[in-house]
């Protein structure tokens, strides 16, 4: 009986826990409650994974109303792989981030912080699960609004400015998205994605549908950090509390990519994607992001900001593979979405440990940390190697699939650009590692010690996942391949 309720439980658990957290006082109780919630949610995700692998797509009708009328929750391979990364990172970040939260969030605001974190989780999960475009907008707003506040909770005063910037641009993006949904509804009279896919097929040549398409893509593109509308992202990631940066970097842009995949391939279909030349535009923007963001990352002094630009570059990889609209392309896109979540989660969480012990996260703060925090910095280094794409890590698997996708379309130049961008990744990751291991910490600064145990557990869970899926990639690649089949084959 409970297995039939898994899709709704996934959303419901954090949704119920969030107001409870807001009522509680102090730090310990909300922390315990939210850690319990995310662990339970992770279990639910695993349950969903098992069910999807055995029985295929799950459909859940809210309130007992059948799908085209009521709101439907759909779970398939693509949703499961995104859910895994969201819930996994949420669990690792909350389990590990306790000490960092104590340091960066005032005691009076702690319950609020946990409530918002869980609300954000609710929003992201709901966006992944729902099969209804307007319901998706509601979850988008839930997650966005909580994100704005979470970013604003940062210790830095400039966090407020970053949150405001994100709020303005994010609201514009959400508005664009909802305008697109409105136009679609006007033309087809339905909001259910599967139903829409059937009805759009008849009228896809009309200007209204194309306008709707454009509005939705731009709206989602803002949330995604697509290159020309990305400028909110580095500030938001750099100023937010460390734990929040880790969670956002690993999940929120991934969910936006997921929505773009769904909207483009399920509702509008590949022919229209190619006919509107959106394919070329997205490939171009992806390559632009790969190069420009990587180069920008090299010159950053704040490591958080450096990683944020690196995220933009990685989103470039995802977008480029997505723009190919071929089966290897979409596979590589989904796979890199998953793997990048693992890498950035690990890197940002390790950085949170650095911020906790060393106080700040400028380049010089990493000096000598290889001796002072050996386990943290080892994790950081391994995740960094994964970001570069060294064999034995998930990064290598991603790069392999990306190159395969490029060659599949005879994109030798693109393949060269991917390799070049990986070299740039070495340029921005290696100096950090070098500082940590081959420099001495400024003796004038207070000495640092190893990160607390829960934090190490959180970091090493994610680093371990980086290595595990790097050596044994079958689960992720299998899910990614079947998602691509599902998206492109129209096997519904």
């Amino acid at each position, binding site marked *: *009986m409970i297995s039939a*309720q898994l899709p*709704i*439980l996934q959303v*419901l658990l954090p*949704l*119920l826990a*969030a*107001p*409870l957290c*807001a*009522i509680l006082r102090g730090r310990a109780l909300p922390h315990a409650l939210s850690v319990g919630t995310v662990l339970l949610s992770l279990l639910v995700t695993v349950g969903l994974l098992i069910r999807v692998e055995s029985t295929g797509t799950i459909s*859940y*009708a*809210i*309130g*007992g109303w059948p799908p085209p009328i009521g709101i439907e929750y759909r779970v398939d391979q693509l949703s499961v792989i995104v859910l895994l990364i969201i819930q996994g990172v949420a669990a690792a970040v909350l389990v590990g981030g306790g000490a960092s939260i104590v340091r960066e969030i005032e005691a009076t605001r702690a319950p609020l912080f946990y409530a918002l974190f869980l609300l954000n989780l609710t929003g992201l999960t709901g966006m992944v699960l729902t099969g209804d475009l307007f319901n998706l907008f509601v979850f988008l707003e839930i997650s966005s609004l909580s994100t704005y506040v979470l970013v604003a909770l940062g210790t830095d005063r400039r966090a407020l400015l970053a949150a405001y910037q994100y709020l303005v641009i994010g609201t514009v993006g959400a508005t664009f998205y909802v305008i697109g949904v409105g136009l679609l509804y006007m033309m087809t009279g339905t909001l259910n994605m599967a139903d829409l896919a059937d009805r759009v097929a008849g009228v896809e040549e009309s200007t209204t549908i194309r306008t709707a398409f454009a509005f939705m893509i731009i709206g989602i593109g803002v949330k995604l950090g697509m290159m020309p509308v990305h400028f909110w992202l580095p500030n938001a990631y750099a100023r937010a509390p460390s734990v929040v940066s880790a969670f956002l970097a690993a999940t929120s842009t991934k969910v936006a990519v997921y929505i773009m995949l769904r909207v483009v391939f399920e509702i509008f279909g590949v022919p229209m994607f190619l006919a509107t030349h959106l394919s070329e535009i997205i490939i171009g923007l992806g390559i632009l992001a790969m190069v420009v963001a990587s180069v920008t990352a090299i010159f950053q002094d704040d490591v958080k900001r450096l990683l944020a630009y690196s995220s933009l570059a990685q989103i470039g990889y995802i977008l480029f593979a997505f723009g190919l609209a071929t089966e290897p392309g979409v596979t590589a896109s989904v796979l890199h979405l998953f793997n990048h979540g693992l890498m950035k989660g690990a890197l940002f969480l390790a950085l949170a440990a650095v911020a906790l012990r060393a106080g700040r996260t400028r380049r010089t703060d990493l000096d000598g940390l290889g001796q002072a925090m050996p386990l943290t910095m080892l994790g950081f280094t391994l995740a960094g190697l994964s970001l570069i794409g060294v064999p034995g890590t998930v990064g290598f698997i991603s790069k392999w699939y990306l190159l395969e996708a490029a060659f599949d379309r005879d994109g030798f130049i693109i393949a060269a650009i991917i390799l070049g961008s990986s070299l740039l990744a070495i340029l921005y990751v290696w100096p950090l590692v070098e500082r940590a291991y081959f420099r001495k910490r400024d003796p004038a600064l207070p000495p640092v010690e190893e990160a607390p145990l829960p934090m190490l557990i959180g970091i090493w869970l994610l680093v371990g996942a980086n290595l595990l899926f790097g050596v044994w990639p079958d689960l992720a690649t299998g899910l990614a391949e079947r998602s691509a089949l599902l998206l492109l084959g129209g096997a519904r």
Partner: protein
Amino acid sequence: MHDHIILRVITKLLMPFIFLFALYVQFHGDYGPGGGFQAGVIFATGLILYALIFGLRSAKKVTPPRVLRVQLALGVLLYAGVGVVGIMSGAEYLNYDVLAEDAHSGQHLGILLVELGVGLTVSAAMTLIFFLFAGQEQ
């Protein structure tokens, strides 16, 4: 500041009617325009009027922010909880049919409870937002 006696008296006269109207909109929502959101806004409007005329401090005595925060959470919990009852009874989330003996009265009850949750949350949120904005010294 005692020369605002007219405003004070009129406000005192109006307040009960405003709250009555809010309750009417809340519980009449299934027949006419209205429902939880609108009722919550009207209820909050009453409190805001009180705060405008009698000062923020007195308004905070009537509805302490702490209580409002709990009310806000309780509203969400009520909404979600109604759905959980559906799960407990083996039906889908937010399936109201199982709340009472027959499907029709179950739906009636379900909508009533969900709207009540919405009303509680919205009125608390609106009042809190006003308190936050009004509490800022320039």
